[in-house]
């Protein structure tokens, strides 16, 4: 069984990180740094910032991305903003308050020490980004502007119109390009990680497939960093990019890295509703819209078919303002999503499918004028118009929750190292900072914190114990075995199916449907047990019957998808298993059996105040559930209330 030792440093919470850096973390001398090679997989916020920073420190860095350039990673699509405890608004913010909001927002299922460190370095992130030329929104006096996000009562979110993720990623990308131009980082685009190489229990390399040529290659390193994002595409329909996948972390899982809390999925409340079965993805409408937009449904079922303008003010139910008066429309994501679901379950949903609620800007337009609303949210209104052919200036948006983020991920200790020594995991790919629910504008914060300000320190602590120049040869048996494993997977996928099963997308859609129904916004023992029957059957059918045309030795997008969907199916099963075992409700994990009479999450701190770290035992064997207890030293676990 894996040992999930969190390695949280001793001392008072506010001093841990500072003291740990100063007194405990081992250093690598500058002349030795260039003798170490670090592989970084992924180049979103976490991967780009880590690659750039590690190479600035003097390590030799190789960065792998499946995209055609690092600038395409899906961090680019984050809209709303990035949190930081700068307190520039003088509204009472502080590191402690950001820490506390994040812990509470995560429904007391995150590690205190990690979250406090995140809040501490948040201020450095803004400094760093501004110095890189990130054009954040500013006030007329030239100082940085802020807005509010869900789960907070202060304005601590920095933003660049509705494209904050894009601007932060391009900032990190520019730093990466600077280092690549100087020859300090080698970048391998169109190169997808297909396996992790573990030698004597330590991560020592990866196997990749070049998506343009099909070539399979071996790469050795002194340490491997995975920054490959989340696994929400298990649901098929989500706000993720179509290419976002779990293959790197899932293959690492199969090599011994523990997978923590896979059932913690974030369903974002404000997305454009599903319109048809051809649909390939769902589009987010930024949470920032909830600063000024008001969410409502008709009070009476019979009004649902009417045009919204014909529903009188007194016949509208602004349910978030009604149920959660202190946070109102800015209640956290999990709370808001479930409230929307409850309204629709009551038959008060709007739109063709009845799965939608209104997000109304009429009041904001009265207050700021159409031009004022346009300046704040213009590009989001444009996106809405492009997709729905409706103007949100004239009629309220229709929105519905959609899969948006995964709080679960590979287990890491305080150093962001997995239980496989030498394997580090950053950003959404790890599990560490958001507990059971992530607050808005905290994903960008965590990605950059991990890459710029955490792993550059903690990786030295590991490498200081690795002999310089001890990197293994790629001709060794472990590399050979891993490459064979990858080649076999592709061979099996390409083996002619019976032709009955349909295309890869057909299977992905079926998996998505099972996951949404069995392990979605609300889960029960019954639905999860159903999922655990249907998914293994789907997996078996997939391997027997899926049709994948072409060959593995050139660009073959059907094969790329087939390889990823194979992993989604297995991961989906683990998500159901984790959700079934966690007999409580917390954050994004809502078990209908465990709720208060008002429909809020009922945690079981006595039995479940822990991280579940699943461990692979081999094909066909029961996966093991390891446990890391969550010891709260500073905050008292209590019932989360936004009322």
């Amino acid at each position, binding site marked *: 069984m894996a040992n999930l030792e969190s390695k949280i440093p001793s001392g008072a919470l506010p001093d841990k990180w500072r003291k740990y850096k100063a007194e405990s973390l081992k250093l690598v001398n500058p002349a030795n740094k260039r003798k170490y090679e670090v592989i970084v997989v992924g180049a979103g916020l976490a991967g780009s910032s880590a690659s750039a920073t590690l190479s600035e420190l003097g390590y030799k860095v190789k960065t792998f991305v499946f995209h055609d350039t690092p600038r395409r990673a899906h961090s680019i699509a984050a809209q709303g903003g990035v949190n930081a405890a700068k307190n520039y608004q003088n509204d009472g913010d502080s590191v402690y308050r950001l820490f506390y909001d994040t812990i509470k927002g995560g429904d007391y299922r995150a590690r205190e020490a990690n979250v406090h460190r995140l809040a501490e370095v948040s201020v450095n992130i803004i400094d760093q980004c501004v110095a890189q030329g990130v054009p954040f929104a500013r006030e*007329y006096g030239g100082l940085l502007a802020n807005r509010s996000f869900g789960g907070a009562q202060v304005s601590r979110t920095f933003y660049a119109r509705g494209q904050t993720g894009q*601007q932060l990623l391009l900032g990190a990308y520019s*730093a990466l390009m600077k280092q690549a131009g100087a020859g300090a980082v080698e970048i391998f685009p169109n190169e997808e990680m297909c396996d992790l190489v573990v030698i004597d229990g330590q991560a020592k390399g990866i196997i990749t497939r070049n998506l343009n040529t099909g070539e399979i290659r071996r790469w050795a390193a002194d340490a491997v960093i995975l920054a490959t994002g989340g696994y929400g595409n298990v649901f098929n329909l989500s706000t993720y990019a*179509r290419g976002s996948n779990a293959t790197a972390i899932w293959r690492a899982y199969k090599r011994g890295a523990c997978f923590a809390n896979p059932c913690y999925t974030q369903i974002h409340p404000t997305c454009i509703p599903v319109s048809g079965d051809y649909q390939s993805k769902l589009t987010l409408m930024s949470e920032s819209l909830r600063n000024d937009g008001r969410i409502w449904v008709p009070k009476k079922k019979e009004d649902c078919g009417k045009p919204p303008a014909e529903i009188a003010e007194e016949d509208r139910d602004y349910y978030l303002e009604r149920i959660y008066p202190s946070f109102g429309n800015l209640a956290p994501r999990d709370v808001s999503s479930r409230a929307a679901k409850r309204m629709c379950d009551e038959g008060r949903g709007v739109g063709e499918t009845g799965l939608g609620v209104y997000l109304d800007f009429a009041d904001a337009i009265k207050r700021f004028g159409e031009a004022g609303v346009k300046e704040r949210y213009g590009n989001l209104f444009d996106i809405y118009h492009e997709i729905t*052919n409706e103007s949100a200036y004239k009629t309220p948006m229709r929105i519905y929750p959609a899969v948006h983020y995964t709080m679960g991920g590979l287990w890491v200790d305080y150093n962001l190292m997995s239980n496989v020594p030498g394997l580090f995991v950053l950003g959404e790919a790890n599990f560490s900072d958001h507990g059971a629910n992530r607050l808005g504008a905290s994903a960008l914060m965590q990605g950059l914190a991990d890459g710029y300000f955490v792993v550059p320190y903690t990786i030295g602590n590991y490498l200081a114990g690795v002999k310089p120049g001890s990197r293994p040869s790629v001709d060794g048996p472990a590399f050979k075995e891993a490459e064979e494993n990858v080649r076999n997977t592709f061979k099996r996928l390409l083996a002619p199916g019976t032709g009955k099963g349909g*295309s890869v*997308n057909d299977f992905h859609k079926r998996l998505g449907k099972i996951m949404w129904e069995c392990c979605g916004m609300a889960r029960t023992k019954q639905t999860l047990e159903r999922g655990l029957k249907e998914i293994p059957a789907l997996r078996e059918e997939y391997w027997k019957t899926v049709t994948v045309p072409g060959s593995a030795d050139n660009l073959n*997008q059907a094969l790329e998808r087939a390889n990823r969907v194979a992993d989604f199916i297995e991961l989906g099963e683990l998500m159901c298993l984790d959700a079934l075992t966690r007999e409580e409700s917390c954050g994004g994990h809502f078990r209908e059996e465990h709720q208060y009479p008002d429909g809020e999450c009922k945690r079981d701190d006595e039995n479940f105040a822990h991280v579940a770290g699943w461990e692979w035992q081999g094909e066909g064997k029961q996966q093991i559930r390891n446990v890391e207890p969550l010891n709260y030293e500073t905050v008292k676990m209590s019932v989360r209330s936004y009322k």
Partner: protein
Amino acid sequence: MVAETSSTKNISVTLKVWRQAGPDKPGKFETYQAKDLNPNMSLLEMLDVVNDELERKGEDPIAFAHDCREGICGTCSMVIDGKPHGPHKGVATCQTYMRSFADGATITLEPFRAKAFPVIKDLITDRSAFDLIQQAGGFISIRTGAAQDANATPIPKDNADLAMDAAACIGCGACVAACKNSSAMLFVSAKVGQYALLPQGQPERDSRVLNMVAKMDELGFGNCTNQYECSAACPKSISHDFIARMNRDYIAASFRQAFTAKSTSTAGGA
């Protein structure tokens, strides 16, 4: 052939698609029928449907670049009926919906075409030249951890807003594909313009514009002849004014480089 129907009646279209097996292989147009399409489907979702059918028959699907499908990652890239990113202004290929096409229409799909963007397969091209231009100077040389407080240098809102207009570039390359000279001036000027408008960008302002322009020329992009097809095709509607700004910067930087004294000392410290 632009029709903005709000009707929900399903439509059928004929596709003429550029198929090319590899970089050195010959390419040609192939015809496909796409039937019974919901007009609210995106163009890429229509291609998914066509590809699913091809895959079920064991045939090679049409390779096309795509990822975020919300107009921000810059991956999608095709010429639709002769226009990069299709008939509408200010959107990317992935934001083009079937309601833009009439029932029975023939839609022609080609890759971005430019010497510096060789075709990899079908509708996918190699745009890595943009990364090389960026490496030549598209950054501010600041090490992680060396930054001062973010509010220490106020930046006038108008400058920050204009810098953001330029920074909105998604690096898709439509500007190159739209230009008869395959010029990358709009892409390069957006990056140069963003940094030139910010105080942080000043120390490297001259070397940045000189190096990025030199790299752009070296990689086989053409020159600008001021016809602004680039701005018209840009999914983020980036203004060609940035090209004029870059030209001014380039001339000033060339003069300063020629006439500014430089320290010749190479002495190091103890």
